[in-house]
């Protein structure tokens, strides 16, 4: 179709400020009928803000949106819906206790009709899932579906409402490589039928694979608009971060003793999040052990277990070959486990506390910070200053509340707090999530430095590329089960994807 296709969406100099931060700075672009454009940028570049403005969740401070040639009234999600915009958020908006069909009809049907036109609706849903390759059990409860299936329901929901423009916000973050391929097939079918897609991502290879044009955002600005056919990954990465990117260099190290061992460990399920199922794992000195898997497959249980928050209900957890007397966060700290939690603000730090207070959060109860029940705040401030200096935490001073720091600097403080005790075991749960590229590189370097010092590092990440780049050994987790250890380069991403989908395990069970 090329340039002749009609413009369906036009953003005109959209500007949005949050306080001093300019999230979107005069961004303009056009979306044409039947094309996939990719919105590429790091976390915090302004992608999601822009789409929320388009969808009416936010109103822009300046600029306007035009849909199918008509201006869109700002701040009204209903208007965007009515005009044919369908959005699939990173976090799904489905009712777990309703069936797939009910979820799709929810809000699309008038409230006052006593009998829903179920027959016609079901036929239409069947047709849509056929046309777009969105296989899903229509009568299953959404709560029983996998994350990939839920995403399909979200897309069906949008299509059912006659969406002409689909906005997919980081849709692949929760998918296995195979599910991503299926999603891309759906997107191709959609554009073939004249729909238009905005694909938001920070993964370069996906953007290269599916889009026809790429818009690159950096710090709220549109820094580049290129035809996908005329660019390459390297060029896009440069545009995205504004500088030459270099991957961390990994020096081959030697493997040491097992610092932490799990022997057929089972932990309880929590709600929809599975616990571990007879998991076996060995964290060896001088090794980064990577844990790959789709989110919500037991990573939280494993992290909580090693952090000392829960204990095994079956099986054994061994520290340096011996079972610890009791297992709690303090016992874990005492055993030399450094913990970098998944959620900096919810578990890693106390937002209203100062850097000093957060720096001693794990060690406050022992000398030199506490003697005879009294705090030594001078020692605490000295300690905080040392971390600030050694780990390059950018801040006004140790008495600043930590909530005023950027995610990267907050993470550096948590990292410093954890690593300052020269731990034998490092638990890094999603350590770079939401960080800018500079902080990502820094955190990864520190993990590699801990490995070089002889620590056993467990890296939990939903980003398969990150796991594959950093790990000496990889386990895949699926529904609480751990795969055997794969050495670096032993399995391709696609092969790991099979395990992430839970398939490798079945074969093994058959074989056994």
């Amino acid at each position: 179709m090329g340039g002749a296709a009609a413009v369906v969406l036009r953003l005109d100099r959209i500007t949005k400020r949050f306080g001093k931060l300019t999230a979107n700075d005069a961004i303009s672009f056009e979306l044409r009928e039947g094309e996939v454009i990719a919105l590429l940028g790091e976390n915090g570049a302004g992608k999601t803000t822009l789409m929320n403005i388009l969808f009416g969740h936010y109103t822009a401070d300046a600029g306007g949106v035009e849909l199918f040639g008509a201006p869109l009234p700002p701040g009204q999600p209903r208007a965007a819906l009515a005009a044919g915009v369908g959005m699939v958020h990173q976090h799904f908006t489905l009712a777990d206790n309703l069936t797939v069909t009910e979820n799709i009809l929810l809000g699309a049907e008038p409230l006052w009709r006593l009998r829903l036109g179920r027959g016609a609706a079901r036929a239409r849903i069947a047709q849509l899932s056929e046309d777009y390759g969105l296989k899903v059990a229509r009568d299953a409860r959404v709560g029983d579906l996998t994350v990939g299936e839920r995403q399909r329901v979200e897309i069906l929901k949008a299509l059912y409402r006659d969406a002409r423009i689909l906005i997919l916000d980081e849709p692949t973050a929760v998918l296995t490589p195979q599910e991503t391929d299926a999603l891309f097939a759906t997107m191709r079918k959609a554009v073939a039928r004249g729909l238009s897609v905005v694909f938001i991502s920070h993964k370069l290879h996906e953007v290269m694979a599916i889009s026809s044009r790429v818009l690159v955002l950096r710090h709220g600005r549109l820094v580049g608009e290129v035809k996908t056919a005329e660019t390459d990954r390297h060029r896009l990465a440069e545009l995205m971060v504004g500088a030459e990117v270099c991957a961390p260099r990994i020096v081959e190290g030697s493997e040491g003793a097992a610092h932490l061992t799990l022997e057929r460990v089972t932990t309880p399920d929590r709600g929809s999040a599975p616990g571990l199922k007879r998991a076996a794992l060995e964290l060896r000195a001088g090794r980064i052990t990577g844990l790959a898997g789709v989110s919500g497959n037991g990573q939280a249980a494993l992290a909580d277990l090693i952090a000392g928050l829960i204990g095994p209900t079956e099986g054994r957890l061994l520290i340096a070959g011996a079972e610890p007397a009791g297992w709690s966060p303090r016992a874990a700290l005492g055993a030399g486990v450094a913990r970098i939690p998944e959620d900096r603000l919810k578990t890693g730090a106390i937002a209203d506390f100062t850097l000093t207070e957060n720096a001693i959060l794990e060690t406050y109860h022992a000398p030199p910070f506490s003697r005879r029940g009294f705090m030594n705040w001078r020692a605490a401030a000295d300690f905080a200053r040392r971390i600030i200096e050694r780990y390059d935490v950018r801040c006004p001073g140790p008495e600043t509340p930590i909530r005023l720091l950027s995610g990267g600097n907050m993470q550096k403080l948590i990292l410093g707090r954890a690593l300052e005790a020269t731990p034998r075991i490092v638990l890094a749960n999603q350590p770079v999530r939401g960080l800018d590229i500079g902080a990502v590189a820094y955190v990864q370097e520190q993990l590699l430095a801990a490995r070089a010092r002889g620590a056993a590092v467990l890296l939990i990440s939903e980003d398969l590329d990150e796991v594959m780049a950093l790990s000496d050994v990889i386990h895949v987790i699926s529904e609480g089960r751990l795969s055997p250890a794969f050495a670096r380069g032993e399995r391709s991403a696609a092969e790991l994807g099979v395990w992430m989908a839970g398939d490798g395990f079945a074969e093994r069970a058959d074989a056994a």
Partner: protein
Amino acid sequence: MRLEPIADPGLTRTLGLPAAALALTVIIGSLLALLAGADPFATLGLIVKGAAGSRFAILETLNRATPLIFTGLAIAVAFRARLWNIGAEAQLYAGAVMAVVLGAGALGWPAYLLLPAMALAAALAGALTLLGPTILKTRFGVDEVVTTLLLNFIALLFVSMLLEGPLKDPMGMGWPKSARLIPEARLPRIVEGLRLHWGFGLALISAALVWLIGARTTFGFEMCAVGRNANAAAFAGMPVNAVMLKTALLSGGLAAMAGFSEVAGLKGSLTLDISPGFGYTGIIVAMLALLNPLGVVVSAIFVAGVFVGADSMSRAAGVPTYIADILLATALLTMVLAIMLTRFRVRRG
């Protein structure tokens, strides 16, 4: 409408907004006086004069502030750890009962032994009164707002039962009133001949101690951490439940000291009306002080002044004393709003 956090509020905001809140309170008070048919300026003047216009007035205000400092401290300590203790009233009565049980002749000790024993027993009783709901909270997740609030009524009925039964004053001519404390069990006056008793001194010392605990001790750090983010505190290895229980003991003990001080310092015996809601007013006191223990002293004196001033104004100007409740309620609401507005900016869209 959305709220946007302000990183650095600046001096005009941090001082100007609370001043505006106070001004708004005064304006609303004036309108009410006008509504009651009195001259608003004269009414406000009479309130100020009644609260602080003479040595007698000032001492009266300080006397009234004494139980409010204790209950305010109790609330501040608990709220800082996010333990929502609405039951200071019950803990106050628990303390008052213990003061009477030991002080009305059961122990014939000299004052220097008897008074500490009474204070200790009172604090213990108050601490245990709050311990129950807190265990229910940490063990079973029972909402302490409900349990502590309802315990207030149970406590009041229990005291009523005691005053009709075992603690009833045989010389009381049938009034629901306890026997009088023996002279050794009475808190002495700070200055001979003036009505201010040592309860006020104890309250000031308690405020200083609570401040010290919060700012300097390991337990204070734990309390604050658990209050700000229990999840992160648990992750860091803090014994969250134990901290909650210790906080409950401290908070309940402080509230009970209000009861001890009222009985041993002011009233000399226990009746059902020794507290006109000091336990609840303590919440206002603590909130106005932003849960700061030293601020509690100031806000308790302010709140007591409004009550005492309104009492005396009412006698002179004929405006109902209820104006005091309205003034305090308004002051609390406007102050909370002002504090929110120093931290957040309201934006449309």
